[in-house]
C-alpha cells in the first residue's frame, strides 16, 4: 500500500485528517498534509474520496 500526497495542491483544510478512521494523517508546521503513520492505513480511501483538492491518493497493493 502507498499513500501519495501532493503538497502543492493541498490547502490544509484538514478534512482527510478528520475522517481518517486510523489517525494515519496529520498537518505539518506549514499546514500541509503529512503521513504520520502509514502502517496503520487500511486503504479505505476515505481521504482520497473527500479531499477537495485532489492532493492525496491511496493505492491498494
Amino acid at each position, binding site marked *: 500500500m502507498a499513500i*501519495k500526497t501532493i503538497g*502543492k*495542491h493541498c*490547502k*490544509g*483544510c*484538514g*478534512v482527510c485528517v*478528520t*475522517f481518517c478512521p486510523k489517525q494515519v494523517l496529520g498537518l505539518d508546521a506549514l499546514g500541509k498534509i503529512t503521513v504520520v503513520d502509514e502502517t496503520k492505513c487500511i486503504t479505505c480511501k476515505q481521504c*482520497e*474520496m*473527500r*479531499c*477537495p*483538492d*485532489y492532493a492525496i*491518493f491511496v493505492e491498494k497493493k
Partner: protein
Amino acid sequence: MEKLIEKYYRPRLPHIWCPGCGNGIVTSSIIKAIDKLGLDQDKTVIVSGIGCSSRASGYLNFDTVHSLHGRALPVATGIKLADPELNVIVITGDGDGTAIGGNHFIHTARRNINLTVILFNNNIYGMTGGQYSPLTPTDSKATTAPYGTLERAFDIAELAKAAGATYVARGTAFHANMLVDVIAKGISHDGFSLIEAVTQCPIYFGRQNKKGDASAMLKTQRDNAVTVEAAKKLSPEQLEGKFKIGVLHQSEAPEYTKQYQAIIDRAQKGAK
C-alpha cells in the same frame, strides 16, 4: 482518482476554490459517474452558469461551455436539440439555478428534455461574497440578511418534481461515493434529471452562520442526511431537521428531443 484526473481534468490544477470547499468533491463525483458509465469524452458536453460551482466546467476536459449567470439550461437545451446524441451535463449553483435561473429551471423540467443537472447547493452565493439564495434556510445570516433571512427556502427536489422532472435525486459531498451512484443513474435516465448535491461553503455560508470548518460542515451533512430507505422507517418527528438522500423520484414521460424529431419527420413527409 489519480488516473481519472489525468484523463478527465485539464492540466490546470490546483483549482481556485477555497480550502475545504465542497466543490472539488462534488466535481470528482461527477467525473467518477462519467467514467463508471464509460461515456465517450468527445460526445459529452458540460455546460455551466456562473458561480464558484459553475467554475467546475473550466477544469474538465470535455467540450464545455461556461455560459452566463442563470443561463446554463437554455444553452444546454440548444446543444441537446442541435445534436440529441450528445450527453449534456449541466453544472449549476443554488443561486445560478434557482434565483436568476429559476424560471429556466421549471420550464426545462417541464419539457422533460434529456439533460442531467447537478445543482451544487451550498445555500449561498459563494462567488459574490455571501448573499442569500432561494435555497438559504430561513433565519440564516447572509451579507444581504445581517439579521437573518425571512423567506422559506425552496425544496428544490420537490420543486423539480412538481415542475415535471422525471428523475430527482439528492446526495452530499460527505457521501461522495453515493453521489457518484445517483449522478450515474441521472445520466442514464432518459429525461430531465436533477441531482441536488449538498455541499459546503465554509467561507461564506459557514463563517456567517457559525457552522464550523469544512470538517464540521461535512459532519453536519453526515448527521442530517437520511437515506430514502431508512426514512421510510422513521416517524415525521424523527425526520425533523433531517433531509433525504438517494433517488427521490423517477417517472416516465415523453422526452423532448424525441418529440421534436417526430415533428420534423412529420413535417418532412408533408403531413400536418
